[in-house]
């Protein structure tokens, strides 16, 4: 029951990062949560594979401030992503678009799973066809 008690403890905010500085945090918790979720999907363009949420580089900070300004202006998440990728290229998106070459990336898992599944089903069927001598 102790575990259950633990499970029932509920906290509100999603995600965590060290890089966000206190002065950046928006007073509206809903907007701030959106800002955090967005910044986890955007790459710090001068860093090596870090999101702007995790990076303490100056560029990352500028981007965090910029995307918060856009959020306050009332842009949707997608509009902000489009705006930033038009300025910095698709390189900034840590979650590649589904489209063009990116479609291959997204589809490769499901396709392999389907093909593999067909192959496995055929293999299992053929293994069963051999007479199973009962124990």
């Amino acid at each position, binding site marked *: 029951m102790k575990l259950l008690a633990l*499970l029932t403890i*509920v906290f509100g905010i999603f995600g965590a990062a060290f890089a966000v500085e206190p002065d950046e945090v928006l007073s509206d918790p809903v907007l701030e949560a959106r800002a955090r979720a967005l910044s986890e999907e955007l790459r710090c363009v001068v860093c090596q594979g870090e999101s702007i949420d995790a990076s303490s580089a100056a560029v990352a900070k500028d981007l965090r401030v910029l995307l918060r300004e856009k959020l306050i202006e009332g842009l949707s998440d997608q509009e902000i992503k489009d705006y930033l990728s038009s300025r910095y290229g698709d390189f900034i998106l*840590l979650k590649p678009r589904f489209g063009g070459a990116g479609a291959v990336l997204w589809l490769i898992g499901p396709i392999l799973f389907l093909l*593999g599944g067909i192959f496995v089903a055929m293999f299992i069927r053929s293994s069963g066809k051999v007479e199973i001598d009962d124990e």
Partner: protein
Amino acid sequence: MITTEHGHLLLIIAGFLALAQGIIGLMGAGKNWRAWMQITPALALVQFLAVGFSFVALLGAFMTSDFSLALVADNSHSTKPMLYKFAGTWGNHEGSMLMWVTILALFGAAVALYSQKMPPALRARVLAVQGLVGFAFYAFIILTSNPFWRLAVPPADGSGLNPILQDPGLAFHPPFLYLGYVGLSVTFSFAIAGLLDGRVDAAWARFVRPWTLAAWIFLTIGIALGSWWAYYELGWGGYWFWDPVENASLMPWLISVALLHSAIVVEKRDTLKSWTILLAIIGFSFSLIGTFIVRSGLLTSVHSFASDPTRGMFILGIILMTIIIGFGLFAWRAPKLTASGAFAPVSRESGIVINNLLLCVSCAVVFIGTMWPLVAEMLTGTKLSVGAPFFDASFTPFFIMLAILLPIGASISWKRGKLAPIIRLFAIIGSLALGLAIFVGLQQTSFGVLAPIAVWLFAWVTFGTLHEIYQRCATGGGANIFWSRLLGIRRSEWGKYIAHIGFGIMILGVGILRAYEFEDVRSISAPSTFEAAGFDISFDGVEIGKGPNYLYQRGEFTLSKNGKVIKLFPENRKFLVEGMPTTETAIAHHQLGDLYMVIREGQEEGKWSVYFYVKPLVNLLWIGALMMALGGALSLFDRRMRLGAVK
């Protein structure tokens, strides 16, 4: 006393011994020359001694701060604490490659010692392949990454070690990871030897299984240690970043899990042979690819503290050789491996086949995601990023399917199972788990499905496994028989149960942590108080002082809740030699999870940026991983497996 020159010479000797081990082993087994086959194990032992002493020589150079060695001068400093002088030996490219090859030789020597019961030809071939892989890496080290180069004019002191690496984690994480990576070489050697032999049977599977298990255990511990290290060192409590270097260790782990399961089928049911061989070849290929990713610096990554294209090309050559020889031999010889064991669609075998499919597809997703930016840039010239959000979305579904399959596959009988009782049983288990998940969902103050899903999966896996134990002991017997059967369960079976529950616990940990993590960021001066997550927190002040090779600012915080008081002392360090700062988080274990605190100098004079996190159930991640490793260890030390005999 072993000097650096001895070390250098021994390294070169070890390289030639490895080559001799390869040629003599293969020739001896091919021509059935008994004496040649008998020499091979001795060569493996001597080779290990040679490279082992070479490694000791390098350790000695680091510990005595011999700055006439270029490597020591570039990566060490006289004021560094002894632990980091010691562990710093592998905190750089050359040293870590020497450790890699030393571990390879260690595995070769261990196989030589524990393989007396194996048929001589198989034994000689396994050791020969091990020797040839070793030779390739000795050549790599001696030609491109020699740790023993001297400087004509030694500097007065060294340039120091990256402060992030100056942590006890460095002493343990890389050795365990390498033991895992390199351990898979043994499985690979067995696969190649089995193909050359043309015989892969239950006995082969039994000989190879302990080595696969050992490699997998080390890999599991190595990855868990790395994740834990990142969690407490990097300052914001992340535990997995889908960084290329992490992916590099995850891929061989996934394949080795698949391999562990399919090898059981070879052992017990004499089928899935060529598939198991293929997995062994793929598994070690991923180890090499992992080494390549880490060592070449081709894929930009927060980890790559080594980069040099010639080295990358050399390792790429080794990988290509391995893959061409491995797959070529497989294509040529595998069709001759015949399976005898048939199985029905509803059977444990089928479950393991689907398990293998899911693991391989998830490994493919990780592989494609890791290599994609590189491929896209080469093909289209555009720079793309693939990061955590992609992997979270595309990898997780397969792992959820794996967790759903797990208890079902694990409880169906071998050969031919009955569908109806399984459906009945899992309808009950699924409903119980659903009840628990709904209960947790109802306690939430905001809507979220992440935690309920994690709770359901955890309960599904755990209840299923507990039922498996119950059924094993209770079928057709009274209470007395139940207890005697419970005590009679073999260690390898306990290993399976514990590892499976560990997997469930890990899922629970990830889900709860991600759903209920709490964060508070603020800019304050000392002394002051604030409230967060129900804690009264007082910031009492900042102490400034000097550590062995750094200056520090240490914040003092007092947290209280319900009369219980906890003190936290997060630190900033500035390393004097390297001139780089690090943050040292303060973590207290609490019943809610970890209380995690970080401070940084604020933007305004006298202000501090204070980061306070509550990480609920975060320790379940590492407890789950340790349970998996423990399960593997129990299985490894099963008496029946230690005999290594054919029944």
